[in-house]
């Protein structure tokens, strides 16, 4: 590794010869950067909205400038601070549970050798991805209601002696949301890992078998290292998204009794921004989220650089 890095450094001197050699790469990069500027960076002029009292008619440049008022409104509100906490907590819990489930599922599925079992299982696993949140949450809601199947089973096995109304208690809310996310996306998220597993050379497994490794050892020493780059990259990308913990799930599963833990930034913005015609507030919240995401990514990336050979940039 060390050798590689040095080599890289040495070669990354910009010389005319090297530029010429890489002309194809440079042309592609140029085209793609122009594209990116137009479609991703140009709309960011919209961020001006966060500092003004945007009125659609007056447009971006004509609306009154209000400085940091929108940010003051957000951070002056105790509720918003709570909302950040909720978003962050659910973001982290969801990230951990969905990642663990997807990796676990991909690895275990890979352990099934008979493809006539493997393929149908995999097909079934990603189907819930196509169900809309409203379908998934309504099934979940019915199952977890005091008369639903979960309470029924718990009562029957004597684990509880009185039905629990899971949606009435804030303490159950985050786990329920995490479960819903796993339920819907495990199979789908596992697809990437499955494709990464296919890149592992089967010869490695054979060699390990000959060395007398059992299956757990093979997972540990072959499969997991094989998917590690993918795992790390996805993790890096997703930690930047912890503040995008969602909107629909929480909105559909929440109720007045648990709103202190169920509201996310997106719900807050809808309530206080969009439904009140305050476009600027939503932009301010969005700007805040972007700033946090980029900060997290910068930190995560440098950690990753230090401890592994994976990085986002």
């Amino acid at each position, binding site marked *: 590794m060390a050798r590689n890095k040095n080599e890289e450094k040495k070669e990354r001197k910009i010389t005319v010869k090297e530029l010429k050699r890489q002309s194809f790469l440079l042309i592609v990069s140029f085209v793609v950067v122009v594209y990116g500027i137009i479609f991703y960076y140009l709309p960011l002029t919209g961020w001006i909205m966060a500092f003004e009292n945007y009125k659609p008619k007056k447009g971006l440049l004509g609306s009154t400038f209000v400085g940091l008022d929108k940010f003051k409104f957000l951070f002056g509100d105790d509720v918003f601070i709570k909302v950040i906490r909720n978003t962050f907590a659910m973001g982290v819990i969801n990230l951990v549970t969905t990642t663990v489930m997807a990796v676990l599922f991909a690895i275990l599925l890979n352990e099934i050798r008979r493809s006539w079992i493997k*393929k149908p299982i995999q097909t079934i696993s990603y189907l*819930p991805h196509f169900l809309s949140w409203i379908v998934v949450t309504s099934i979940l809601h019915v199952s977890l209601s005091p008369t639903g199947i979960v309470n029924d089973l718990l009562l029957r096995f004597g684990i509880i002696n009185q039905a629990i109304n899971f949606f009435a208690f804030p303490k159950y809310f985050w786990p329920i949301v995490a479960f819903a996310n796993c339920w819907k996306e495990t199979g789908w998220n596992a697809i990437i890992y499955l494709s990464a597993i296919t890149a592992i050379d089967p010869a490695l497994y054979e060699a390990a078998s000959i060395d007398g490794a059992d299956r757990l050892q093979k997972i540990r020493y072959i499969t997991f290292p094989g998917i590690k780059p993918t795992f790390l990259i996805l993790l890096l990308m997703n930690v930047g998204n912890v503040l995008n913990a969602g909107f629909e799930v929480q909105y559909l599963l929440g109720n007045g009794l648990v709103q202190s833990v169920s509201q996310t930034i997106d719900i807050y913005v809808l309530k206080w921004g969009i439904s009140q015609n305050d476009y600027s507030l939503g932009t301010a919240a969005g700007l805040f989220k972007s700033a946090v995401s980029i900060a997290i990514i910068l930190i995560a990336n440098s950690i990753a650089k230090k401890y592994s050979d994976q990085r986002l940039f």
Partner: protein
Amino acid sequence: MKHRVRKSTSDIIFEIVVVVFMVCFVTITLYPVINTIALSFNDGIDAVRGGIYLWPRKFSLKNYKTVFAMQNIWVGARVTVARTIIATVTSLFANALLAFVVSRKRFLFKSQLSLFWVITMYVNGGMIPIFLLYKNLGLTGTFHVYWIPGMISAFNMLVMRTYMEGIPESLEESAQLDGAGYFTIFKDIVSPLCKPVYATIALFIAVWQWNSWFDAMLYNRMKTEYTTLQYELMKLLSSVMQQSGSAENAKNGAATITPITIRSAVTVATMLPIVCLYPFLQRYFVTGLTIGGVKE
């Protein structure tokens, strides 16, 4: 794997764990799907009472009839198929090429270019600025708004980059010695080895395109000829929801469809084509593929 090694105790335990896990997983995962299918074949009014789990209680094809009798559904289906194919091809190509560029170890602006794209994942100008941009570019009211704006996605690109980085550099070097240019390396050396990841990303793009409706609503609201399947279905759903909740529109005897069953029929109708397409892609990332035995 061909020559079977005698199973150790730990392997037997392990296999039991795998089987138990898979049985639980499949049961839990399959349930909402079966429930949705059951509801989609159930009479609407009857379904309102709840209590339908695995099988319809009062069988009816009314929901599907309603869905397929919508006037623009076939126009929408055609546009959706077209946008899915065009966008999958173009977007896969663009993302793969970009991933190839940033995965070249010797590329001069490797990390700057990556950063440039990583940032795009976390910033968003908002609906109105984007709308104005597309309008000024002349994309609104056209088919192109479906495939041009989302062509490159940092997420897809980075997944592919990671995969490409795992391909031994020696392959590239030996090709270069033979005088191959970068495009040839991309086309003839890297791409064939990337089939699993290409299949994966193609699936992602295709599903994303297939399910998109917000762009159709926002940019082509008045253009019936560019409506998409999902937008038509969304319109149906939101009108049915409205009907059950409004004093003005409801009333009158036998309103035999309700949001729950229509929603289910719409879901099944959306899911089916993708499920049919899936096996063709699946073989690339389930069956496995040997990378030409080259070791670093």
